[in-house]
């Protein structure tokens, strides 16, 4: 840490532009690492948050395996696979966006962020299509839940509440991710040349890759239940 003592200015600047070092940090390097470690600490909370959902799902799948196997046949594996492909590709484009932010290639960064945003939108659209199919078959556990095979209707209801719960929570995180990527995109468009500080884009990338990892585990657990 460079130890030159900075003259202390009294008031905290109201708006901290990302390129500057905020007053409590010594230099840009310390600030960068602080933000990355802070982001990872936040991702740890998200990991535990989704981890608990996966635990509930795993316990109930072991308790009601037969019913869950039958109920999961209602899910459309094709759309699930398509969504996985979309999200993995968006993860690639996001990583490229961070790369180009680091090398300060503004045009490429904008192109990458736009494609990530587009792919995220596609994911939400495919998800909406899937949900509409489920609603059409009265498989939403809210009001009138109807399941053809009466003997496992109750457990199928539990399966679908876990399905809607987990994928709904994930979709919410995807939407939040889209907002943040949108903000990065507008910021990049507004600037004449790429900013020196790529940390905000890096943090958006970390968040987006985490959302992708959640889906990586969600897909086999929900869609590929073995016999």
């Amino acid at each position, binding site marked *: *840490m460079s130890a030159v003592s900075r003259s202390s200015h009294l008031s905290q600047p109201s708006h901290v532009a990302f390129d500057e070092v905020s007053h409590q940090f010594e230099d840009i*390097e310390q600030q*960068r*690492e602080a933000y*990355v*470690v802070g982001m*990872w*600490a936040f*991702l*740890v909370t998200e*990991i*535990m948050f989704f*981890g*608990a959902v*996966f*635990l509930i799902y*795993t*316990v109930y799948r*072991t*308790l009601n*395996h037969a019913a869950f196997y039958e109920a999961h046949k209602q899910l459309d*594996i094709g759309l699930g*696979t398509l969504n*996985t*492909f979309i999200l*993995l*590709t968006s*993860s*690639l484009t*996001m*990583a*490229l966006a*961070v*790369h180009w932010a*680091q*090398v300060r290639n503004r045009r490429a960064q904008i192109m990458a962020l736009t494609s990530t945003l587009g792919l995220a939108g596609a994911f939400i659209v495919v998800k909406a299509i899937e949900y509409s199919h489920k609603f059409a078959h009265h498989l939403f556990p809210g009001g009138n839940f109807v399941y053809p095979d009466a003997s496992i209707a109750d457990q199928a209801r539990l399966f679908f509440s876990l399905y809607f719960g987990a994928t709904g929570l994930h979709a919410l995180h995807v939407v939040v991710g889209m907002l943040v990527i949108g903000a990065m995109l507008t910021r990049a468009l507004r600037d004449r040349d790429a900013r020196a500080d790529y940390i905000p884009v*890096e943090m958006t*990338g*970390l968040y987006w*890759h*985490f959302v*992708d*990892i959640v889906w*990586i*585990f969600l*897909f*086999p*657990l929900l869609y*590929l239940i*073995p*016999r």
Partner: protein
Amino acid sequence: MHGSQHSHVIPIAVYLRSFVALMALLVLTIAASHVPLGTGVSSALAFTIALIKAVIVVLYFMHVRYGTRLVWVWSAVGFFWLIIMFAITLSDYVFRSIVRVQGWQ
């Protein structure tokens, strides 16, 4: 800590290679789901494939591979705690099915 490699720029080739690996694993996991290996084995297989994909994303896309030791710790601690939570809670459900162990009278 001075000079963390954080500003290290990763070549695009690394990203593309990781992406190809992820695609291959996606195809593998779907193929594996059609092979009747019995409940336990195929669940474990699906989980390990997903785990490998997740590790690729964490190491290469999230730059943990090139981050400082601190980032290593904080990216691993979350998943490690999940293992603790899963192992102990599921052990309760497994033990419940073992009604009585002889000799413990």
